[in-house]
């Protein structure tokens, strides 16, 4: 399939597909966010910005690509959130500027637009940081210009632009050291790639079948949002205006001659017929949303100015009865458990270990991939209990856990466990017959009784705690301090254990990492049994990444 010219309709589809694709991936992008401030909100911010842009585009009824691009840029500007959102708004402001007054675009025009977008975006910053969304946009635009010289098919051009954007994204860690350190690609860049993916899918027509769905869900969301209050506070009988009425009027010149359209007067007139009124007008359309008791009257008023399109009338009393009914059905069934436990771990083995010990929800996460406050809040909700304990198992997650606890409806207590072994010990100390405070005290106490050790490899040369560590060597960490380093994994593990195990200790639990073989573990167990007479060894397959071994000594 070849596309030589891009018209307004296709461009609208591209924008909507980009927005939808971004929305679906917002959580993933949040997880990548480490720069400039690692607050895990890039995906959310970009999604909010993009949604605002897409909403403007939806209002457009015009055949000019330039008008659509302008509306998109305006929407992005008004809704810009966060650094990436502001940058995105600039890219498309320049994009719109680059196609001034064009009705259609050919491959060359599109390349010029991409190029103009990047140029504008770079102008709004004094000191551009490379390895970010700016770099990805820049490389992609360069590719567009290069390809457009020989390629007239827009689909094939967009394919190559996307490909270059993806490779550029992969290179971001080479340009921005903090990304490399954490081992992620730039989150804003990922967002842009996601949008371009949506563009391409729409160009190829792949995402089109879902298009209608999206419109409905967007509208439903708005409706759901403002109907929600009604459901909470109202009886079905109290609904004064029974019909949620939405329609658009396409103006017709001969009717306008008799009834010139005045938005304010129109709104005032409608407001006498109901509430929750929204009127949005453009040159040739007006969109109306109203809750009215007699929707027929409202439609008649609209019809004075033109023909009615996209009508939707819903009986809210019926809906309300259905919703209230559903709530009634649902509630008695879901009796909440007295206690729920939410914890954080990565690795299939650790997950099932925690579950077997009584954890209600295990959030995937840990070193280098901290779950956000939102993830934890959702897990708390999912646990669906009156009292909930959160065991973060990592000191970087403790704060997010505490924030999540603040916003939760249930009684939430955070036991600030900093390691997996602390989490396990705390979980073992839990007893359902005790009350929340007693349990928290016991768990706090239990986590202090255990010593935690981890064996992992260094991602770069460094000097910490007076030890010089080379990249690729293994380090043994005991309760946050590096105690041993060696190029050999086994040597590191032995040295770490020598540091951790004292005469009073009786039990060593080994959590075997994803990349650690059974024979290595056996070798280590032989060593421990020979060296430490009184220590019993227990082995679990944790399958955790990054850490070859996690030790728990008590």
């Amino acid at each position, binding site marked *: 399939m070849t596309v030589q010219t891009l018209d307004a309709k296709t461009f609208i589809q591209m924008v909507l597909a980009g927005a939808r694709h971004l929305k679906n991936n917002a959580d993933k992008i949040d997880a990548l966010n480490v720069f400039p401030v690692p*607050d895990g909100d890039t995906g959310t911010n970009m999604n909010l910005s993009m949604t605002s842009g897409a909403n403007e585009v939806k209002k457009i009824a015009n055949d000019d690509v330039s008008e659509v691009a302008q509306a998109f840029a305006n929407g992005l500007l008004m809704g810009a959130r966060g650094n990436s959102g502001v940058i995105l708004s600039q890219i498309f402001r320049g994009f719109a500027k680059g196609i001034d007054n064009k009705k259609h675009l050919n491959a060359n025009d599109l390349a010029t637009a991409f190029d103009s977008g990047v140029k504008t975006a770079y102008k709004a910053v004094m000191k551009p940081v490379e390895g970010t969304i700016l770099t990805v946009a820049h490389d992609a635009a360069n590719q567009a210009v290069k390809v457009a010289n020989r390629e007239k098919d827009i689909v094939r051009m967009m394919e190559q632009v996307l490909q270059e954007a993806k490779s550029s994204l992969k290179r971001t860690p080479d340009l921005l050291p903090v990304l490399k350190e954490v081992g992620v690609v730039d989150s804003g860049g990922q967002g842009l790639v996601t949008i371009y993916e949506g563009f391409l899918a729409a160009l190829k027509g792949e995402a089109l079948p879902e298009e209608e769905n999206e419109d409905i869900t967007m509208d439903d969301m708005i409706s759901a949002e403002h109907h929600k209050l009604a459901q909470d506070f109202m009886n079905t009988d109290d609904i004064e205006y029974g019909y949620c009425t939405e329609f658009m009027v396409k103006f017709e010149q001969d009717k306008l001659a008799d009834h010139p359209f005045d938005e304010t007067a129109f709104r005032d007139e409608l407001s006498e017929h109901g509430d929750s009124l929204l009127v949005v007008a453009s040159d040739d359309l007006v969109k109306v949303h109203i809750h009215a008791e007699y929707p027929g009257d409202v439609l008649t008023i609209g019809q004075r100015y033109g023909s009615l399109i996209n009508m939707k009338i819903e009986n809210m009393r019926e809906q309300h009865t259905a919703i209230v009914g559903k709530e009634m059905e649902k509630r008695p069934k879901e009796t909440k458990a007295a206690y729920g436990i939410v914890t954080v771990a990565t690795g299939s083995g650790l997950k099932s270990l925690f579950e077997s010990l009584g954890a209600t929800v295990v959030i995937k996460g840990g070193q280098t991939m901290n779950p956000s406050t939102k993830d934890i809040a959702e897990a708390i909700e999912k646990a669906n209990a009156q009292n909930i304990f959160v065991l973060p198992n990592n000191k970087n997650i403790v704060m997010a856990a505490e924030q999540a606890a603040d916003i939760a409806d249930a009684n939430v207590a955070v036991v600030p466990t900093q390691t997996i072994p602390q989490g396990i010990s705390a979980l073992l100390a839990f007893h359902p017959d005790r009350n929340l405070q007693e349990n928290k005290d016991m768990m706090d106490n239990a986590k202090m009784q255990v010593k935690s050790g981890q064996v992992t490899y260094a991602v770069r040369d460094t000097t910490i705690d007076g030890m010089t560590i080379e990249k690729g060597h293994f380090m043994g960490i005991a309760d946050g301090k590096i105690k041993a380093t060696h190029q050999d994994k086994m040597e590191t593990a032995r040295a770490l254990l020598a540091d951790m195990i004292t005469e009073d200790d009786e039990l060593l639990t080994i959590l075997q990492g994803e990349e650690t073989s059974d024979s290595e573990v056996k070798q280590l167990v032989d060593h421990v049994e020979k060296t430490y007479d009184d220590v019993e060894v227990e082995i679990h397959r944790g399958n955790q990444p990054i850490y070859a071994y996690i030790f728990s000594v008590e």
Partner: protein
Amino acid sequence: MSIELHTNDGRISITNEVIATIAGGAAIECYGIVGMASKSQIRDGIAEILRKENFSRGVVVRQEDNHLHIDMYIIVSYGTKISEVAHNVQSQVIYNLNQSLGLDIDSVNIYIQGVRVAKD
């Protein structure tokens, strides 16, 4: 004036100039900022864009009984969502000062001294 931190091994003092430089450095990396302006623009009425080497002149560090406040005088690019840019500067400055100096800043006040229209 300087900030003093006491540790087991002795005393660390950080001058306001250092804080201003780091805050300024963080700000100019922020998207949407095209420059720092001198705080004393009232004198001549025109926001003067400071050169890189003295952008700390556009940053005022104030200490009020153990609380740190920073005032920043910035120039932003026309056509950006300025409120959001200002907000981004605040969070970036707070984060950077916390990362590099371990300081908690009580407030970062942004004064937008000018809007610059980019030349095409």
